[in-house]
């Protein structure tokens, strides 16, 4: 088994998959903490459906580089959702659900009316569940992913303290002169980038898991914002790594394997949290 693993690790596609997987897991977990706390757990799901709809449009238009369409559309929706989340007529969760369902339906309809290949349902399945796309990455995509991940991490570290104040108490931050609106906008854009990136890895249906599981697991164990953030990043990277290895060895779909590992990690963290609380008494 070790031999088999070593052989796989020498294959280029497996290396690419590991690099991209770990990077996406890192980025999504960083923002996961903020999103969960802001009560936007489902934004990942919603935006990934938007990206799915945009992908369908790109396929119909026969765009060679579909990122050019998917990224701006997803960003726009992220900005709309996060900016109007505070005092909109349609409240946050309802708005997310509405946009999500509408674009999913729209995308599926487009793909059926203008089929771009002979097997529509397989295409849909691939984009939704990301069944094998991560194992067929080209070098360009790996580079794109690497560059965007570095940008996301740098932005996050640079604005870490500001993101904290805006997440913890937006009214206070705004009142004392922090430009909360601008940081919300920045968050929205970063989130959109991560979602579009993550679609390559786990497919659009499973993105929420990448965003929320590490954050929730870390919150079971730690009680300061910094330790929760760091722990969720480490957990997410470990789970993604493990998930990809298992999926290569066992031949299971990559996306769902990673999510399964994430869920298992959440279970372990819950237990550990309980044990610790019990031990303290």
């Amino acid at each position, binding site marked *: 088994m070790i031999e088999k693993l070593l052989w796989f690790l020498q294959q280029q596609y497996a290396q690419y998959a590991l690099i991209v997987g770990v990077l996406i897991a890192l980025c999504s977990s960083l923002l996961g903490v903020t999103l969960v706390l802001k009560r936007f757990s489902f934004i990942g799901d919603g935006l990934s459906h938007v990206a799915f709809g945009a992908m369908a449009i790109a396929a119909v238009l026969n765009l060679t580089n579909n990122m050019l369409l998917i990224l701006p559309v997803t960003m726009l929706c992220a900005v709309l959702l996060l900016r109007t989340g505070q005092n909109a007529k349609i409240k946050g969760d309802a708005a997310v659900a509405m946009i999500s369902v509408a674009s999913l339906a729209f995308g599926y309809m487009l793909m059926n009316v203008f089929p771009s290949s002979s097997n529509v349902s397989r295409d849909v399945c691939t984009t939704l569940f990301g069944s094998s796309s991560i194992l067929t990455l080209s070098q360009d995509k790996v580079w794109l992913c690497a560059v965007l991940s570095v940008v996301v991490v740098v932005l996050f570290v640079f604005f870490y303290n*500001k993101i904290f104040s805006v997440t913890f*108490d937006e*009214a206070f*931050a*705004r*009142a*004392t*002169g922090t430009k909360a609106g601008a940081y919300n906008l920045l968050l929205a854009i970063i989130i959109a980038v991560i979602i579009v990136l993550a679609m390559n890895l786990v497919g659009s249906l499973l993105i929420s898991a990448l965003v929320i599981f590490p954050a929730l697991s870390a*919150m079971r164990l730690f009680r300061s914002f910094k330790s929760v953030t760091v722990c969720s990043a480490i957990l997410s990277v470990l789970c993604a790594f493990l998930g990809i290895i298992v999926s290569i060895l066992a031949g299971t779909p990559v996306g769902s394997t990673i999510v399964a590992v994430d869920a298992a990690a959440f279970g372990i963290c819950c237990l550990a949290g309980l044990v610790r609380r019990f031990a303290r008494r």
Partner: protein
Amino acid sequence: MLLACKELSLGYDGHEIVHGLNFEIHSGDYLCIVGENGSGKSTLMKTILGLQSPVSGTVVTGDGLRQNEIGYLPQQTLVQRDFPASVWEIVLSGCQNRMGLRPFYGQKEKRLAKEAVEKLGLSPLTKRCYRELSGGQQQRVLLARALCATQKLLLLDEPVAGLDPKVTAEMYDMISNLHRDGVTIIMISHDIDAALRYATHILHVGKTVYYGTRDDYLQSEAGKIFLLQQKGGEAK
């Protein structure tokens, strides 16, 4: 003059709830805003903080007070109740308004936060998690954060809501100490007794608007009626 409201009218979506507010706050004042529920006390506070724009009229600052030098103790939000953050992280985040685009807190901010923590007796709690503290301790943490944002003017939105009598008294003492140290206080309160005990000035918002010193308020028509109502309410 630290802050003045001129011909201020407040409301939501153009619907006016308070009309023609005129008052000035000077350095060292302790102003209590009283009035019935829904009379526009919180709206007034949000307007002073610049979170909401007035229907008409203006809020002006003086004595070199900038808009971002107003400390604020908001009512607790739902998000904060299960937020994983240490006391130290929250107090330090009060320094955000002097950061500009600088990404990380420096020595100066840390010293400021440390002073605020000591002033409010939070030193043993700095490493604790905010959501595991008692209500009174949480309010003290938020007060320390507000102190980091400013040493000049604090706006407190019902700082004792939901606290038991003993902790309420401690909270009022603490605010009173800050006032003695030279911090100007504006406080919304349901507790008319406390307002009359500690405040130097009273602003009554509602159908009748009254602004004046504490002693004048006791003699005024608006004050007498409101006091009578409050006492009556308590007697029931």
